[in-house]
């Protein structure tokens, strides 16, 4: 377990991502979002990507690196997410116009189904049934099944090539800890991915520094770690640091 998975910088960590890759990007409303890895992927310029995330990015200012930015950069073929538009008509997401015009494809998935499809991919479960979305437009033409008197929709696993995630703390073997709601999709995406790349907010600890009972994501599914440089050198370590 002694292998050190630390990478020197964000660009090195994404240097082998090919055109056409499936990238899952963690985060929910800020916490746990791997801003530095998204920015590195924009610099790398890989194209025809499929991006999986809860949203394509917010309508907030200042703008943070997000999927919308990769879309504007011409790198994205398809997005799988639970929002292609904001629910409030007054909030306009940068992504929405690309989707509405047909420039980028999108698959809109209920958030719990998105989480469960990622979990299934990581768990070797190719498909499962869920009550979510039954009777809605999303279920039209799709396979359903009645089990114990209730109708369920068949959903398939969502395997991932590269997961981009952000954690509070890591040891050199890749064991991770998240702080508070930073956890969100991140553990699932790490489980679902062939290669998991993590930006870490604190210095990377020696193996064993995180007690075995306290690990949120096991190093077994984590491949590359990059320390987020402390401000002011670091980019986007926290929303506030950008907003200042």
């Amino acid at each position, binding site marked *: 377990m002694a292998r050190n998975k630390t990478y020197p910088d964000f660009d090195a960590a994404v240097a082998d991502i090919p055109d056409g890759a499936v990238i899952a990007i963690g985060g*929910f*409303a*800020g*916490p*746990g979002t791997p801003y530095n890895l998204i920015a590195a992927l924009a610099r790398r310029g890989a194209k025809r990507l499929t991006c999986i995330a*809860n949203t394509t990015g*917010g309508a907030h200012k200042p703008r943070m690196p997000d999927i919308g930015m990769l879309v504007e950069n011409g790198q994205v073929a398809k997005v799988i997410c*639970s*929002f*292609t*538009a*904001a*629910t*409030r*008509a007054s909030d306009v997401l940068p992504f*929405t116009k690309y*989707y*509405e015009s047909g420039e980028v494809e*999108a698959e*809109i*998935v*209920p*958030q*719990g*189904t998105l*989480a*469960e499809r*990622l*979990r299934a991919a990581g768990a070797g479960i190719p498909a499962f049934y*869920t*009550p*979510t*979305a*039954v*009777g*809605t*437009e*999303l279920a039209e033409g799709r396979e359903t099944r009645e089990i114990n008197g209730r109708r369920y929709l068949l959903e398939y696993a969502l395997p991932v090539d590269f997961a981009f995630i952000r954690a*509070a703390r890591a040891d050199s073997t890749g064991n991770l800890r*998240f*702080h*508070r*709601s*930073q*956890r*969100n*999709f*991140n*553990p*699932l995406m790490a489980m679902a991915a062939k290669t998991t790349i993590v930006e870490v907010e604190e210095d990377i600890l020696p193996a064993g520094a995180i007690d075995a009972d306290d690990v*949120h994501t096991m190093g077994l599914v984590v491949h590359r770690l990059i320390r987020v440089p402390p401000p002011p050198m670091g980019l986007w370590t*926290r*929303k*506030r640091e950008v907003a200042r």
Partner: protein
Amino acid sequence: MSWTRMQMAERLVREFQDGWVVNLGVGMPTMIADVPMGDRDIIFHAENGVIGYGAVCAPGTEDLNLVNAGGQNVVLNPGASIVHHADSFALIRGGRMDVTVMGAYEVAANGDFANWKLKGAKGGGIGGAMDLAASAQRVFIMLEHRTRDGASRLLPRCSLPITAAGVVTLVVTDLGLFAPLGEGFALRDLAPGVTLEEVRAATACPIIA
């Protein structure tokens, strides 16, 4: 006279029972966490895996890595716990939410409601709404009774694509509290100064008083 949004929140909170686990959607429902619960022990669950959160933080006291479903920085109550998204939605689909409170564009007498896609849009914003609507023990909807153009948001059937079919338990609007009854809504409570006739005039389906 009618209810303000905070009064709508307070009216719904009167329906909460001691020990309930409550999920609050984005928008208007987030106000509910600020309503005093008296001696009732209520646990707030946010879809992003935060169990047992409380009020929005005072400025300067935020933990920037802790948000509720609406992205607000909130405090944790004693006994709070954090889980990942799959476990959070496991609790939702597993029936552990006693109630979910959501905003909506439309709600129908048959218990359907619509809150994810606007007319003519290609996509929309589902978030956790479909999972919550399908599996919570009760679905409470908060919405303005009428659109800005004065059209009823309480309808015989939804005109927009629905979020879930036949799941709505209670609806609070600025005019009153309602329960879907199939062909119309039962009136459960009237906002002060609002008359039954005003409600009927504002509603596109029967109101059973």
